[in-house]
């Protein structure tokens, strides 16, 4: 009987000592914003594409911002920035991606009047996609650019280094779609 009492006492002590310290966890890997800056070679207006979802999964729907249409026949230097704007100041996740370049690759699936080529490489000489060259073809309406970031893709799989996502595998960290005209 002594043991029973002891055990119960121990239990109730534990029960009382559990104070609630509910913490709010910092979402370290949250990506809120994808920004694609396109600077035309030989002058002209910059084109900026922004996908933004400040409250993360669920909640309010994300917003898409397109500053201008692409100009037919122009070649643009593209730069991607991946941000967490829920932090103040915003956290630049691009740095983390560049540090782990071998484990990341962006893919660009576009309408037929837009072509995107890689303009950077990781330590193994494989593309990353933070720097790109975008070529606008003939004037056409409703051209899409789907930007996908894969974590741990197989960069050696067939076609992957050339930008074909089909055999890449890995997990999708970013997948956003922009629709704009080439004029």
């Amino acid at each position, binding site marked *: 009987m002594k043991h029973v009492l002891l*055990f119960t006492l121990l239990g109730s002590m534990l*029960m009382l000592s559990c104070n609630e310290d509910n913490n709010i*966890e910092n979402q370290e890997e949250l990506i809120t*914003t994808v920004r694609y800056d396109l600077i035309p070679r030989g002058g002209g207006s910059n084109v900026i594409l922004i996908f933004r979802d400040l409250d993360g999964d*669920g909640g309010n729907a*994300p917003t898409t911002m397109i500053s201008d249409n692409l100009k037919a026949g122009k070649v643009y230097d593209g730069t991607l920035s991946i941000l967490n704007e829920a932090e103040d100041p915003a956290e630049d996740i691009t740095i983390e991606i560049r540090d782990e370049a071998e484990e990341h690759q962006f893919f660009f699936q576009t309408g037929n009047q837009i072509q995107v080529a890689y303009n950077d490489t990781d330590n193994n000489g494989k593309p990353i996609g933070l720097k790109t060259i975008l070529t606008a073809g003939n004037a056409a309406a409703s051209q899409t650019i789907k930007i996908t970031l894969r974590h741990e893709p*197989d960069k050696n799989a067939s076609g992957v280094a050339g930008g074909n996502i089909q055999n890449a595998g890995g*997990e*999708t960290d970013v*997948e956003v779609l922009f629709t704009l005209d080439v004029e």
Partner: protein
Amino acid sequence: MKGIYAQCLLKVTGQVQDRHDGVSLEFASVYIPELKKDYTTDITGHFTIEGLCAGKYHFDVFHIGCESQSFFIEISSDTMVIFQMEHHLELLSEVLITEHKHDRNLSQASYALTGSELQRLKSQSLAAIVSGIPGVDMIQSGGNAAKPIIQGLTGNRIAMVSDGVILESQQWGIDHAPEINGSHAEKISVIKSSAPVLYGTSAMGGVILVDNFKQVEDPHLHGIVNSSYNTNGRAFGGSAKLMGKMLGWTYNTQAMFRKNGDQHTPDYFLNNTGSQEVAGGLAIGKISDRQSLRIRADYMFQNLGILRGAHIGNTTDLENALYRSVPFFTEEQFSYTIEAPRQEIGHLTTAVNYSRNISAHQNLNFSYNLQQNRRMEFDVRRGGRSDKPIIDLRLLSQTANLTWEHEGKSINTKIGADFRYQDNDNLPGTGALPLIPDYMSWKPSLFFLQAADLSDHFHAEYGLRYEYTGYNIFKIVNNAIEESKKKFNGGAINLGFVYYNDLTSIKVDASYIARAPQVNEMYNSGLHQGIAALEFGNPSLGLEQSVKITADASQQLGKAGKINLTLYGQKVKDFIYLAPAAEPALTVRGAFLVYNYTNNDALISGLDMLHVVNLLSGLDWTNKLSYIRAINTDENKELVLTPPFRASSAMNYDLALGGLKSNSLEFFVQWKYTGRQNEVADGDDFLAAPEAYHLADGGIIFHSSLLRLPIDLELSCSNIFNKTYRDYMNRLRYFADDTGRNLHLNLQIKF
């Protein structure tokens, strides 16, 4: 001198019987190590030992086709004993007549695994062990994370009890396996009808009872040492159990470890499907005529790998993975390495039970248990965060129970009260928002249960339970903690009726249950990696009410054997489930499927059958089948993850070898058929149900003795023909084939 002579004239007469039908067993061998003498039973199962001195003796009983057993008896006068032996094959669900008449689960359809049937399964997970029972299936997320389903229900709707303690863990997750180790179990039984009065409303679908820490009143050290190896996954494991009595206390202590690497389909490795498991515990007891005290502590640790190719981001990734014949990340090399995605679980149980006879027919029982469940889940993450858990939960549960029992002439009564307190915490450091919020819950209950023998052939049981559930939930909404309070008045009514005679037993059981919704069903929010979708709870859910009727009949058919048939129907009002939303959610990672907890009425019904026949001396033939339908009656469609039709047929042959009577060879072959799940509409799941398949298993067990210690050496093979298949209930079927051929080698020594 005269005294000593007089003492050594004692006579022991005995009989060896089959535990299940009382049939006497001839040519059984009774060995007394203290005398180094062997005795053999005659044609009526009797034996006589004369000229014994007073004292304590071991009786080691061997019989072909039975587990050898040791009994320890003090002889002080002429004594008559009956030894009941357990058959290698459990013939039928606990046949009522030979079991204790006062057991409370008589009117419920149940099935017990013991002896060598259990022995053959022990190296597997609890879910895999019980899934051989008709009506019991499992949901798997690969071999490492398997959950048992009893007649269509799982998770929070079944109770899993180890040595009287109901497991309290994060059972809501579809990829969360129960934290109970079956490798030392003496007996594992499944109650298939609802058993809510004793075990609470969470026993809506049934109960799994695991007896691990049996206490024996034998002062000598006894134990079991076991080691095993599997070729598929190159799994090796060992376990030891020691039992005895010291300083007036009985003890039972056990430890085990198991390690396996990447498993293999007939064609490729399943990378990152290794696992590591360590478990151990100690139970002590002090038993006297008037009171008994038992104290136990045990701990289990698991590190479970999840197929790398099954870890996906959004719906595009899912679609890509679905169309591949070989999963992404498949490598040529075998490895024991376990990396993210993986789960790390530690479960500690401490329990004390005190029982006292307050008069000749009254008993008071007090029990208390404390359980801590720590669950960490690791995902493939950016920036070296794969070593940081994305889910880190600590669930602390305490349950106290006080029960008064009265054993009348024909009526037994139990009145009891339970109190359970739980505290669930998301531990800091995950760098992610929690899926299930922090909460506290308290659940006081009261129950009343009566079992009455109405006549020599009729027995009735009835009971009721009231269960209050209170929750304080701390959910994070827009970076602030939002506290909600919820309370529910649930409960259950149970009524059972049994008719039995020498050849037949018919059990009919009806139960009504009102189950309070769980915190996950009301407040989960966010990405659930286990289902690769966003999952949202519904705080307005109310009680889930179920009526289940089970009819269970066992019949001796003479030369045609024995048959057991279970028919059941369960109507659930406001059945809570995860329903896919029409529109996927758009996120920065692309589109995600959305599942919302919702309720609809459901009707679950089915049929389980077990048939055993003794074809020749030593040759048994066992046939099983189970069929189930689970329909959402509001939308008139089958619920996803309803087990498909399964049937199996097994032959077991015991061959006595010359020489020592304890030497025998046991052969078994089994054929298993799984039908295609045709009822679930293809559009309701990611992928259409896989095709039907057949599997074959077989093996040889050599029962012998080494220095008078019984040893069992088993060599068996599962999936003999290395068949490529996918199982509807295994969620890895979306990504990969199921495992191929496995050779299993096991050596067990008892002392």
